[in-house]
């Protein structure tokens, strides 16, 4: 999560300097839950549909950092060769599907990947995770996707970051239930709730949920409560977030909380922490530099192929 925070801070300042192609959407405050999830999953074995605020999870899952910087900086070497960008990058064959923007739409895709593994006799010990926000819970796709996973009893872990806002919309304009975890029972899935600002608690609850899914417990819904500590994107100053909320326990920064937890528990030292941070800074610097040196996509070089089957191309 240190890496993610460092990378995203860098991306945010590159955005302000006008160096980024397109928008920047970052996840400060959500690194604890995202990285907890990513660290429970194995690249090339499990599935993780990362969403808008999942740099922490992507890194922990094993996504190379260059994939991120290439995507943001518009390198033609990026996973989609400039055809899509930022958080839409993915490496589906490695278990990291490439998201479309329509919220909720990736849940059923993950379920389909899991169903395929079952049909192929390869589901044993596999977990598929998907992230969604509080706003995404209002989509029909969320409902259909989770319900279908429940009917098929697939090992899906749905990490729901209730960060109190969907863009500017507060939760009371999004849903009327007391607690989103109360949705679990209606789908017949197991529900978990956690304070998403608390790193150790997040790691515990999320890893338990992943374990339950892995061992055949069916879909798991994990609701993490926290606050989005940035704007919706870097273009947004989030002035609509009330001060009281920022100062409430929900507004704690999971990074600070996490560092203190690890230091207090004697799991790391201040020196180690500092060296992690400087390593992260170096790694980020290198990945940014590499991507910046790489060529941009060239429309004359791109093959513009939309069909995999060459015989389908028309010349009109």
């Amino acid at each position, binding site marked *: 999560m240190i890496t993610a925070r460092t990378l995203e801070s860098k991306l945010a300042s590159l955005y302000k300097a006008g160096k980024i192609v397109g928008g920047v959407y970052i996840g400060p405050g959500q690194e604890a839950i995202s990285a907890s999830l990513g660290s429970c999953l194995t690249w090339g074995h499990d599935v993780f549909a990362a969403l808008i605020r999942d740099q922490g999870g992507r890194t922990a899952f094993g996504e190379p950092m260059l994939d991120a910087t290439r995507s943001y900086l518009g390198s033609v070497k990026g*996973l*989609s060769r400039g*055809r*899509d960008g930022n958080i*839409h990058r*993915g*490496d*589906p*064959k490695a278990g990291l*599907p*490439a998201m*479309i923007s*329509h919220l909720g*739409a*990736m*849940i*059923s*895709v*993950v*379920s*389909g*990947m*899991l*169903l*395929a*593994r079952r*049909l*192929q006799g390869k589901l044993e010990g596999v977990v598929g995770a998907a992230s969604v926000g509080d706003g995404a819970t209002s989509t*029909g*796709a969320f409902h*259909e*996707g989770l*319900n*279908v996973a429940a*009917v098929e009893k697939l090992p899906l872990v749905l990490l729901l970051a209730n960060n109190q806002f969907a863009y500017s919309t507060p939760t009371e304009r999004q849903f009327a239930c007391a607690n989103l975890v109360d949705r679990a029972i209606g789908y017949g899935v197991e529900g978990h709730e956690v304070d998403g600002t608390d790193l150790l608690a997040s790691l515990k609850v999320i890893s338990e949920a992943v374990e339950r899914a892995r061992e055949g417990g069916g879909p798991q819904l994990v609701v993490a409560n926290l606050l989005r500590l940035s704007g919706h994107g870097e273009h947004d100053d989030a002035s609509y977030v009330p001060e009281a909320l920022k100062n409430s326990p929900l507004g704690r920064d999971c990074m600070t909380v996490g560092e203190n937890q690890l230091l207090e528990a004697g799991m790391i030292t201040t020196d180690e922490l500092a060296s992690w941070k400087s390593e992260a800074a170096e790694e980020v610097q290198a990945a940014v530099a590499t991507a910046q040196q790489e060529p941009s996509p060239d429309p004359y070089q791109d093959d513009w*192929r*939309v*069909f*995999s*089957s060459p*015989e*389908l*191309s*028309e010349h*009109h």
Partner: protein
Amino acid sequence: MGEVTYIDAIREAQHDVLQDDERVFIYGQDVGNFGGAFKATKGLKELFPDRVLDSPISEDAMIGMAVGAAIEGMRPIIEMQFADFSSVAFNQIVNQAATHFFRTGVPIPITVRLPSGGTPGSGPFHSQMMESIYAYYPGLVIVTPATVADAYWMLVDSIALDDPVLYCEHKFLYRWLKADSMKGDDRLPIGQARIVRAGKHATVVAYSAMVHEALRAADSLSEEGWEIEVVDLRSVKPLDTDTVIASVARTGRLLAVGEAFPWGGVTAEVVSRVASEGFHLLDAPPQRLNARDTPVPYHPNLWEAHRPTLESISAAIRNLLRL
């Protein structure tokens, strides 16, 4: 005509592909023991119990699931109960499935079966033709079989294709259209149109059920000495402009016929391609005949006046011959 129906061919193609290819599975409402609303999957669940799965009434998730399974190397067939209900899966079809290869390089070999088109008494929500809507979006293959053998082979070929295919099967043809043999003797690849009747005075381009109306119209005009060429597009994307233009080169006249709504769509694309690329071949203004610009009406009296028929096609051809 023989005893093999269009829907037999659809069932049989699925059977054969399930048999030959372990990567194929069927997912859809009531496709299991019930055999599907139109019986297109009858008996398949018994033979392939793990690979014929009843889905909840969740069209959006059905397509999302299929895309996910395709990423993992499977080749799902999704049965929509009616083409009309794919409207709630529209996003997953046009934004998820259609764009995936372009975005990621990973192909999505899914086949979505769309029971399409009108039958009397079906009304606005069980009669739609949706090929034009999907053809608009880049990345989708749209096939519209009009014969029993095409129903068979084009389904087999659709499933074999590495790209997402919308297989538009016409409900009116299900049991009405019969042939002696399931597989015929004139298999063509997807993307190639077929000249189903040769002629020299005018070309009628049609697809799906309208091919048969067009053939009847051509028959009736032949009594008056007119030789009308009929082209069955077979797939509307890719669209075989070459065959159409070659036909117009012979006849000099074009009528494009569709059962769909009149704004845009297949007939506009055909006419505008011919006008752009084959302008000097035309001896008369190219014409179109579509259904009316209203929802498909329920009552058979209205329904018959809504879509092109033998009579209205014949009238349109006569008009074209006079232009």
